[in-house]
């Protein structure tokens, strides 16, 4: 039986998270097929067909999937998915919204946020904000899984799968899309950036984030924040790195004015190199940092910008 991967996209472009999910699928035995559900999403389907290692792309292109609401997409995935051994999606807010609904419709468990595939039925996933790793085995006929994208590399774009449309539609009006406010940024996306500069409560206010932005500009980095900085209103919600925000694992993570609460560490401790700049030398962030600098960030950031 084959593996079904749910593509992450915005009707225009295929998101890198889909590529990480395919890599996770490759570690399970079986042919890999991709489902693209959206509206006017042919470009996405074409891109998906080129992912290395996949054999087929199923495209559900209909107005009912435009906003990928769980109430519309879950019945589609459950219907198509019953012929597969595994259904995988990235553990993004889209995947996390839709996939448990699919699992319940199929009357099977979901395995959330896997970071390792041990065999076709055994997986490793973090629990307690990453303070423990659980190895779980599933005896369900269909394994419904969300994938922590930072734990798997991106599949390459050298494939040549076939594209097959489906006419399955879902008519529902119990959930209606009203609006969307997406942050616009010229910077790389937080979850796929190779360098992240992140600010915490120590930044003192939102205006001071300009100091971080200047450093980020020099490095081509994304900007992140701790929960404390988001709660204080310094930056929008979608900047948050941590257990309940975004999980990131860039090549370089620079934590500035972040004390390092366990919930924040849960979101970034898999970064390759961690730099911490904090004036409190007892801050827990230094326990995970490869390079720690005890300094006033208002002196250190301009200096860093100059030195880069």
């Amino acid at each position: 039986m084959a593996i079904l991967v749910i593509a992450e996209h915005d009707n225009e472009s295929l998101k890198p998270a889909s590529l990480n999910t395919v890599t996770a699928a490759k570690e399970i035995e079986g042919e890999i097929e991709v489902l693209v559900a959206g509206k006017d999403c042919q470009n996405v389907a074409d891109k998906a067909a080129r992912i290395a290692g996949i054999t087929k792309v199923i495209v559900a292109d209909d107005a009912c999937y435009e906003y990928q609401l769980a109430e519309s997409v879950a019945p589609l995935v459950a219907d198509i998915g019953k012929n597969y051994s595994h259904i995988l999606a990235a553990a993004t807010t889209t995947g996390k919204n839709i996939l448990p609904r699919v699992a319940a419709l199929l009357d099977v468990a979901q395995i959330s946020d896997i970071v390792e595939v041990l065999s076709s039925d055994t997986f490793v996933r973090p629990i307690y904000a990453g303070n423990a790793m659980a190895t779980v085995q599933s005896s369900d006929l269909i394994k419904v899984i969300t994938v922590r994208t930072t734990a798997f590399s991106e599949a390459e774009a050298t494939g040549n799968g076939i594209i097959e449309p489906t006419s399955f539609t879902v008519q529902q009006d119990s959930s209606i899309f009203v609006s969307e406010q997406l942050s616009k940024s010229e910077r790389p996306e937080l979850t796929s950036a190779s360098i992240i500069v992140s600010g915490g409560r120590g930044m003192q206010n939102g205006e001071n984030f300009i100091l971080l932005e200047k450093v980020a500009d020099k490095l081509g980095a994304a900007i992140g924040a701790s929960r404390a900085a988001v709660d204080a209103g310094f930056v929008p919600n979608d900047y948050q790195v941590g257990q309940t925000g975004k999980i990131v694992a860039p090549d370089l993570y620079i934590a500035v004015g972040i004390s390092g609460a366990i919930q924040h560490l849960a979101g970034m401790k898999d970064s390759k190199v961690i730099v911490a700049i904090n004036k409190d030398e007892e801050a827990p962030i230094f326990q995970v940092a490869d390079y720690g600098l005890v300094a006033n960030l208002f002196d250190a950031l301009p200096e860093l910008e100059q030195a880069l």
Partner: protein
Amino acid sequence: MKILVGVKRVVDANIKVRVKSDNSGIDLANAKMAINPFCEIAVEEAIRLKEAGIEDEIIAVSIGPGNCQEQIRTALALGADRGILVESEEHIEPLSVAKIFKSIVDKEQIDLVILGKLSIDTDNNQVGQMLAALCGYPQGTFACNVELKDGKIEVSREIDGGEQTVLLDLPAIVTTDLRLNEPRYASLPNIMKAKNKPIDHVTPADLGVAINSGLKTLSIAPPAQRTAGIKVKSVAELVDKLRTEAKII
């Protein structure tokens, strides 16, 4: 209008948990337990709806061993009207939890269910979505704003790229994100009053739910530890290390 909130008993969010040395689980002996922070936000939102005159009754439900009563009492002290404790000593996976909730939703004719988006122990983020599927109700997950409008509920959701707003028919399932509200503390008089509020005790079997799961936990191990690196003395040294040692910039 009737509202149901879930309150899960979990280890206090400020405690750094330790894995048992035989990798059989987490050492929770003597650990301070509390309401899951996201459930606390769910309780607070329900109380605000009641204070706004929209809700008539708030039922707080917890599933687990007898001492989960403490978390129900806390919810009652905060403003819930009555509690239901679904008693079980077994570990219950999200799908079974959703089935238990469904049975209560049907029996009590619930109009709105507010649950935490995840619990900070198992980090699953599943029950709300599963309950919505089982009931055939719409779902507003990861909510950062909730407004009742002409018999419907408008939910703003935290999504990866920003925020999305959806309009849902009632009954509906809402799961809370961190910034939906800031939970209040229970006052002493309310804690005293809560002692007289009723808590029903039932079992999963009473609700017609058999506890089973396709999932088996084989082991629970500590994560790979990161060791602290070095302290640099200056920005110049830092940049030099990143260039020549880490070779990352």
